[in-house]
């Protein structure tokens, strides 16, 4: 009981950080789309699209989260959700490692903004409510937010006691912070260190995924929840070593082989 009480805040802190960073990264990407829509097609329909998408995302969390917490046994939930987080986190971490090593192009908000503006300017102008602006803003926020919903539901529902509300609040706080910053600077946030944030989120998702999927099959973690920050440190070291090794390999290309360009999206 004493051990649980002393380790619970550690898990909550890592959970809030993971959800906040994940939500912030996705919202920066969504903000780029919304700003492009607002600048080219007007703000009213763009903001209506944003509000509608946020409402649908919040409804998804409210509809799916509580039934999972109440009706699915915790060990089964942790096994399945931990597995999901492990796969999802490894995907984020892999991409972040490749980007940090310069083997994959970084997410370029400026290029995406310019691309969106050009596409939206080609659409015919609207009279009254702008369906194009609404749809593009809705899709941008909804699709970027869907990953956050999965993270909020999985991280929030598998904690014991359930921290679904805390996870949802952390995601909403990130959305508000990114929205306010976007409002103040009134441009896309290309200066945000997205890859570093993605690396951080990837590390935390992999750590939570490892911890919970292993708990689901009855692995006995030394130190209980305290194993989570230890896992974050372990995976952080592995990721750093990988990036350094790849950077060294990249400066010595194979003879006669040019460096290939990387991808930009995702």
């Amino acid at each position, binding site marked *: 009981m004493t051990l649980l009480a002393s380790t619970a805040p550690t898990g909550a802190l890592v959970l809030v950080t993971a959800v906040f960073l994940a939500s912030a990264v996705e919202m920066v990407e969504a903000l780029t789309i919304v700003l492009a829509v607002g600048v080219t097609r007007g703000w009213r329909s763009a903001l209506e699209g944003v509000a509608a998408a946020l409402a649908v995302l919040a409804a998804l969390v409210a509809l799916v989260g509580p039934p999972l917490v109440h009706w699915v046994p915790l060990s089964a939930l942790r096994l399945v959700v931990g597995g999901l987080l*492990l796969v999802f986190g*490894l*995907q984020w971490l892999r991409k972040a490692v490749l980007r940090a090593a310069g083997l994959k192009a970084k997410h370029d908000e400026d290029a995406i903004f310019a691309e969106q503006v050009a596409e939206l300017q080609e659409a015919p102008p609207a009279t009254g409510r702008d369906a194009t602006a609404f749809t593009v803003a809705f899709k941008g926020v909804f699709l970027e937010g*869907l990953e956050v919903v999965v993270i909020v539901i999985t991280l929030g529902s598998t904690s014991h006691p359930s921290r679904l509300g805390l996870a949802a609040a952390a995601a909403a706080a990130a959305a508000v912070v990114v929205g306010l910053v976007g409002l103040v600077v009134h441009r896309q946030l290309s200066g945000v260190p997205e890859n570093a944030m993605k690396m951080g989120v990837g590390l935390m998702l*992999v750590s939570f995924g490892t911890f919970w999927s292993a708990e689901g*099959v009855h*692995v006995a973690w030394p130190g209980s929840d305290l194993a989570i920050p230890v896992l974050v440190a*372990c995976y952080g070291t592995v990721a750093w070593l990988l990036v350094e090794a*790849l950077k060294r390999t990249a400066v010595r290309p194979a003879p006669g082989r040019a460096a290939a360009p990387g991808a930009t999206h995702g």
Partner: protein
Amino acid sequence: MVDADRDARSTARRWLAAFGHFWWEFLIGDTPELFVGAVAVIGILALLCTHTGLRTLAAYLAPVLVSLLLVASVWKAVRRRAS
């Protein structure tokens, strides 16, 4: 009536396909090795945990296996770029 039924079925099929596509992209996408590897890691841990005495050993093995999986997937991406 028949047309309405067909429309409803077609819409349901489209939603189902979109739902399946979302989860496929979400879990597998262009890194099927991570999905298969994660399932294998959890399977190995589950096997170890059938023996009560090996449950703590499994806790030390889990991050090692997951790290190896990450290294293998990154290595695969580097090899793919090189070829």
